[in-house]
């Protein structure tokens, strides 16, 4: 826990921080020479590369534990639950490869709730993890809000917040059961960042240094004419993909937009801290406010399964509007079934993710043919599409003339 006496004071400290990061040393000294030591305390546990260490050892250790539970849950507990699941299907005379709806699956296993032990462990480990993070950031709220304030107006990357923006109800859910979701907690970005690191470890590998984002960006295709002056990352969250884009294309104007103000605030703060000049704005992917034909590359990173299918179609149309002729459109997200039926075990997992992990739109997304919908809206897939993130949908598109 950060000792509150160690925290730097509000406005003066904000001015000092901003000045320091703009290299206005003299101004910083004038704003609060005596604050220098306190400013250091902001990161008193230090950094691991680009990851600011959590503010307390025990909190970090609890997260280390949470990683371990997630790994164990994803292997041993999942295998046990799956074996129990298959026995329950067998008892009912249901073949495991039969295609079923979620309702049919849940009916088939309702007599043996012990099957849900892996889901219980997954979600309650996650719930405890979120709560420990939220408690910590709330206990130190003024410190972390002051830190974000100190970076809000600091460049080189811009930050645009729209406090009067109407936030659609579809974006207010507590996705991944993260308390407050992306819009309802001032530290949504902080909480999301540390929390989702454990998601990566159990699925794709370590991502504390944005390794997954950087590798994915490195594989992204570029327009045939090689021109990459402007890039848009729709639904950027905390901007790990956005910053990776700016690192690969340092001369490009790179924008990350997201509905969640706390997400883009944290993303902007973090980008400035690690010295990456990406721009962030609180805007909707369905209504980006950018001019027609503006972007050479338009991407999104695992956003679409977190919005209604109807909104996904609107976002594709918006991507078509802002992309220039020959520009790349590459929305990264899960593969979809394109139907509401699947194997029993697959639909069981989809149900828990949608219903209990609060991924409320995932079933809708899964039932649509996302790739085909893009092809119907002014984009063409090349003959040999690039696989940007192995295991996920391959949606490499070029905007038609």
């Amino acid at each position, binding site marked *: 826990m950060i000792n509150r006496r160690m925290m730097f004071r*509000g406005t003066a400290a904000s001015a000092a921080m901003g000045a320091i990061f703009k290299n206005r040393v003299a101004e910083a000294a004038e704003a609060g020479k005596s604050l220098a030591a306190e400013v250091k305390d902001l990161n008193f546990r230090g950094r691991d590369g680009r990851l600011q260490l959590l503010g307390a*050892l*025990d909190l970090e*250790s*609890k997260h*280390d*534990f*949470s990683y*371990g*539970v997630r790994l164990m849950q994803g292997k041993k507990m999942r295998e046990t639950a799956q074996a129990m699941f298959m026995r329950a299907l067998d008892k009912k005379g249901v073949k495991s490869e039969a295609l079923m709806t979620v309702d049919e699956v849940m009916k088939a296993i309702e007599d043996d*709730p*012990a099957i*849900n*032990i892996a*889901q*219980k*462990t997954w*979600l*309650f*480990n996650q*719930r*405890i993890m979120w709560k*420990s993070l939220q408690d910590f950031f*709330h*206990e130190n*709220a*003024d410190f972390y*809000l*002051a830190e974000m*304030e100190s970076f809000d107006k600091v460049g080189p990357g811009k930050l645009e*917040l729209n*406090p009067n923006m109407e*936030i659609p*109800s579809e974006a*207010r*859910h*507590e996705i991944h*059961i993260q*308390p*407050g*979701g992306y*819009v*309802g*907690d*001032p530290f*949504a970005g902080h909480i999301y960042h540390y929390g989702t690191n454990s998601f990566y470890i159990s699925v794709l590998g370590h991502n504390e240094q944005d390794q997954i984002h950087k590798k994915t960006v490195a594989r992204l295709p570029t327009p045939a004419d090689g021109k990459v002056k402007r890039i848009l990352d729709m639904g950027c969250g905390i901007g790990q993909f956005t910053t990776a884009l700016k690192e690969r294309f340092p001369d490009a104007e790179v924008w990350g937009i997201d509905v969640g*103000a*706390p997400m883009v*605030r944290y993303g902007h703060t973090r980008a400035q801290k690690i010295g990456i000049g990406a721009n962030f704005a*609180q805007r909707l992917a369905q209504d980006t406010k950018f001019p027609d034909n503006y972007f050479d590359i338009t991407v999104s990173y695992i956003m679409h399964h977190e919005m209604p299918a109807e909104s996904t179609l609107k976002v594709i149309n918006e991507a078509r509007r802002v992309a220039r002729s020959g520009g790349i459109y590459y929305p990264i997200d899960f593969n979809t079934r394109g139907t509401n039926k699947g194997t029993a075990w697959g639909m069981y997992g989809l149900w828990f993710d949608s219903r*209990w992990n*609060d991924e409320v739109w995932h079933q809708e997304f899964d039932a649509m043919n996302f790739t085909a919908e893009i092809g119907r809206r002014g984009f063409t897939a090349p003959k040999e599409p690039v696989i940007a993130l192995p295991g996920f949908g391959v949606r490499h598109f070029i905007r038609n003339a």
Partner: protein
Amino acid sequence: MVEIKSKRPTYTVDAIKSDIGNSLFLGNPVLDNVVACLISLSGDVWATKRRMKVLESLLAKQGITQEMVEKYRPTEQEVAAWEVERDAFVESSLGNLGNDATRPASAGFITRG
């Protein structure tokens, strides 16, 4: 709206709350609660063990080595005191495992006196 201890702007709106706290996955709410408690408790145990590792590393740098820790023999007084604490810990953490309960919730009042 979430309440926090700061007057600074938060740029938040109300979220639609998940009902995960009311979920019953294992067919018995007590069983669900026990699993949640175990996960939480285990996290605290690991945090304590990890802190201990940090302390041991720091002590080693001050000349107190792992070998010295392993070879340490407590005094008679320490042994006696630690055994009392150990037994209390075992009882408080695992004592309920030996509880041979037989009466269902619907059981009538017992005859007293």
